[in-house]
């Protein structure tokens, strides 16, 4: 049982790092970025290409992926989402266009990775990092799992507290509630949007690197599968609540691990998403969302 809980925590940590980036942009600057999965995948792919030429330790590989993720997300904001938001007549039409724009942006890195790899799995074989297996109190884990759990929970709590207590966090939350009023109060929306997207992309890159180390390899399509899960996590936790995202990630991972542990692997998606559906029937605003949907 304890081993299953550990497995769920490890899986939840990966989901968390990935979903945090998406939730951050969605709940503050109002960007539901459907290119987040492609950013995740292409960051890992970039690190894969680099490790094919240079043998690097794990921190360096992670750094490359984080930098690639931040760069991709920044470019997405500058070249796609920024112009869309400037040209949109109202917030509603901007959201819809950003959603479609995200899908379009995602197609580009996906096509490149598929072309280069012929859709074969890729990993960090060129890295000098080798996962070590160890046992603590009868629980078997790898050093990769340890890094993922520490990074996942640490970053999750860090982002949550930063948004709740810092001045920039307050400014971002103000944009989430009412961007026009926030601007009138002196909040520089464009700069903060750029910074938020870069952070969101960096988190996607971090998730890409960590998950690739954990799984051994991912494929160009891996980001799409995670995107759906992240979407579900944010909705389950409650849009606007970083604490909700943390809980949502572990609830989803716990449900999946439970179903797998029961040897009912074909029911994983049905049970996990069914559970989310039930929660949303009872609490449409999500576990920690406010009744009135506000991005705070």
């Amino acid at each position: 049982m304890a081993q299953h809980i550990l497995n769920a925590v490890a899986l939840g940590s990966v989901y968390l790092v990935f979903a945090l980036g998406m939730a951050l942009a969605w709940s503050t600057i109002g960007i539901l970025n459907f290119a987040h999965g492609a950013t995740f995948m292409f960051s890992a792919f970039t690190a894969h290409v680099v490790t094919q030429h240079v043998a690097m330790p794990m921190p360096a590989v992670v750094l490359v992926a984080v930098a690639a993720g931040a760069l991709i997300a920044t470019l997405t904001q500058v070249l796609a989402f920024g112009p869309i938001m400037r040209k949109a007549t109202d917030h509603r039409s901007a959201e819809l266009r950003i959603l479609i724009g995200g899908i379009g942006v995602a197609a580009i890195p996906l096509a490149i990775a598929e072309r280069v790899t012929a859709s074969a799995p890729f990993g960090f074989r060129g890295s000098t990092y080798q996962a070590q297996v160890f046992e603590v109190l009868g629980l078997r884990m790898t050093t990769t799992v340890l890094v993922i759990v520490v990074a996942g929970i640490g970053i999750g709590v860090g982002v949550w507290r930063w948004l709740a207590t810092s001045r920039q966090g307050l400014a971002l939350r103000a944009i989430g509630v009412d961007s026009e009023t926030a601007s009138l109060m002196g909040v520089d929306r464009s700069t903060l949007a750029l910074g938020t997207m870069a952070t969101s992309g960096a988190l996607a890159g971090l998730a890409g690197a960590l998950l690739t180390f954990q799984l051994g390899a991912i494929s160009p399509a891996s980001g799409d599968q995670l995107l759906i899960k992240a979407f579900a996590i944010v909705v389950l936790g409650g849009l606007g609540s970083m604490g909700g995202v943390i809980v949502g990630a572990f609830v989803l991972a716990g449900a999946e691990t439970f179903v797998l542990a029961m040897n009912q692997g074909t029911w994983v998606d049905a049970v996990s998403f069914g559970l989310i559906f039930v929660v949303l029937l009872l609490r449409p605003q999500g576990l920690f969302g406010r009744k009135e949907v506000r991005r705070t």
Partner: protein
Amino acid sequence: MRVPHRWRRLRRATACALVAVAAVVMSGCDAAQGGIATQEGIPKEIRLLGVRDQTGPVAYAGIGGARGGKLAISEINRSGFLGEGVKLTIEEIDTAGSIETASAEMAQATADRTVHAIMGPTQGQQAATVAPMVERAQVPTIFTQAGSDGVVINDYTFRATAPMASYYHLATEYLAEKRLRDVSVLYNATYPTFAEIGEGSFPKQADRHGLNIVSSTPVQSTTQDFTTPVRSIAGEDPDAVVMLLTEPQSVTALTQLRQAGYDGQVMGTSVQGGGNLTEAGKHGEGVIYPTDFSPALTSEKARDFVAAFRERFGRKPDVYAAEGYDGMWWLARAIKESGSASREGIKRGLQQVAKDGFEGVMGELTFEGNDMRVPGVLVRWNGTSEELVSDGGAS
């Protein structure tokens, strides 16, 4: 002198019309040169279309098939196999992993009267969607991969890939021979080929050979992390694990299985071929799997194919390339057999060659109706390449 605006417009319209007429005439000339595909006899140019994934999630199958086919075409043309000056040509059209694109491209391809035959989509759902279309248009179409039901459904649909289940007995026999009696099965239950083996043919074969299935663990195509199921399997400590998973899933499951402390035999599938285990590093070493083709095969045909493929593409051929190659030779033999490159002639020829069978790079090829069967081969991945375990008669 300044030309009035309306006259300029008229001139431009006339020029456009002339260009359109010229294009029609040119395409007519092309058709005459290539031969209308319904005319009997063998024209100087036999035009084929490859309608399959060159990008998308299973691009590796389409790319491999196209490369194998191209190599076969160059050998067929160079050797004058179909007669002096007769040339096979092929144009590849990318279906990009999309059923809609495959359907639209196949509609165009079948309507093109200069197309003699088609090498069809490699993805099962795409192939099953276009198969009825092929019959309506009566264009002989050879599929590779596309292991789903509903693909080889009429006189015009043919498949140059043997179902995995038809040679998976090699794996069962090996486990029985090595007395690896307690077996755990980890399979992707949402992937038809693996579900069929995991739930149908393998349990039956295991029962026949006295193997004991300790556990059978289904997962989905969306499963990315295998920590939980492989920990359970490692806890059972079976003699062998039969792993029926897709490419990225295999790398992950193997890595996590070894990290969970399991060091027994892992039996995979042909999906592990083509170097797909490379990313698993040392965790992939020692995995054994049955496949329809391996570069390690020792027959003269296989050796020549591997050498020619390496020379042309700078890498070893994979199963997809071998299937594309044998599929193209099946087509060439069919044209020669019937003495006609018409669509009807090719269909007749393909059926006749299927009745007789022939030797390909995958070994002695036999057929069940329009569906290919191969002897199969059992190989071991040594971390960098495949080694022959038993050839099942393929060499």
